[in-house]
């Protein structure tokens, strides 16, 4: 699970950068770029938080082991 979350979180960060690259090349307008950046940022925080806190939760619940 953790490697998958790691890949997804890197993907979200990549999305942040990709939206700016697309705006730079004129492929998307300013409003679309800012919305895409915001969505990718939210995804980054959600996925990274899950990646960070998931193992701790499992340890706290011995029944899951």
């Amino acid at each position, binding site marked *: 699970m953790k490697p998958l979350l790691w890949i997804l979180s890197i993907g979200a*960060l990549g999305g*942040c*950068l990709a*939206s*700016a*690259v697309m*705006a*730079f*090349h*004129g492929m998307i307008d*300013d409003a679309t*770029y*800012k*919305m895409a*950046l*915001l969505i990718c*940022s939210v995804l*980054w*925080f959600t996925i*990274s*938080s899950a990646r*960070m806190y998931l193992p701790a939760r499992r340890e706290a619940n011995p029944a899951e082991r």
Partner: protein
Amino acid sequence: MSQPELTAEQVAARMDSLYEFDREPVDENHLQSNASFAGLLAGEHVAATEFVIGAFFVLHGVTAADLFGGLIVGNILAVLSWAFLCAPIAVRTRLTLYWYLRRIAGPGVTVVYNIGNAFLFCILAGAMISVSSTALGLAFDIPSPQLSDVYPNSVAWVLLTFAIGMAFTVVAILGFEKVSKFAELCSPWIFLVLIAGALALLPRLGVATDFSNFWEVANQKIWTGHPSPGQERFGFWHIAFFAWFANLAMHVGLSDMALFRYAKNWKTGFYSAFGMFPGHFLAWICSGVMVAAVDREMNPGLMAFTAAGIAGAVAVFVAGWTTANPTLYRVGLALQVVTPNWPRWRITLIAGMATTIVACFPVVFLKLLDYVAIYGLLLMPIGAIVFAEHWIFPRLGIPQFEAERKGQQISWTVLLVWIGTLLFCFALPIHLYFRWLPGYFVALGAYILLRKARVRTA
């Protein structure tokens, strides 16, 4: 109810107990890999200050060539300072500066050092709260202070800054560990928002998609060589020295011994480049691009919002928060030892309130560059003293660790050199940014001469 008065010995004993966990040298089993140093250092040097510093270089009218050249030279010098000054002593002693300085200068000096550091941290945290206010102020349509402002420009700004400062303080009291974990998570994202924001703004400044005219636009619209009204003009050496001393207390001042004592060998000091070049090169360039795109208005919140929308404004707010929070926590810890049995929450609350009041005065973040210079300068003499004691004394046959051997509470020689060096530096008729370097050699020379003279008379 009257509180019992603390003796100097009690204060020193309390300070020792605070740092008890790192009293012993790091053992072989706890050494960290170079990869973990690269990650840690990369995250450490992306903070709210980056949004301000790079923008100020633009306002100070630096040219593009001076900026790029100065940043490359200054950052290389900073990396070399970590590699040749800080890391070797850290790896040989495996101690923090606190415990090593205690052996050299006595517990009294370490108390003075820590309290001084706490006050300096308060001002830094105050600046970060102000930076966050510029971001949140956008949501409430509260105007940010102007570049020349010293005092708050509106009641709304004071109320907003006070609310943010108190919120940060409460979080610092409630849970430091979770916030520091959150800060780790934020660093790469904040860096990406800086890069993304600057990149997206480049077409607005007229940069072609193949970057063919980047240098031309950089010189004509960003780093133009013309300072904003009221700002002095910076050249190559201002930028080089700033990049070098931006972390002076950490490398030359040796406080990063706490970090590098976990390194397998001194060459890990070179890994500081992973922090310097993304954080103090790319990020500063990006914030420069951003301020140029908002007609040189020194408003980190507005800059980031213009460049990256809501994500940008959130990045500035979060960057301010994640920088101010551990700082407030450390202030609380450091001041705890000189208060009469106050719990940490109370001293953090008082320090947070004081910091918040400081934050209401925009001058703290509008003079951030000078503050960074003074911060490094104040702590630099301690680095020179420790360097002399560690490397030079054994070669000159001067006995090391006088305070420890003689059981001194305070080494007056150290204190005299420290204060004397600062007086010398503040009297020097050169630009603030250049004063620390002659000061370092004065501290080194004065400490060696005074100790040598004492050995002869003994």
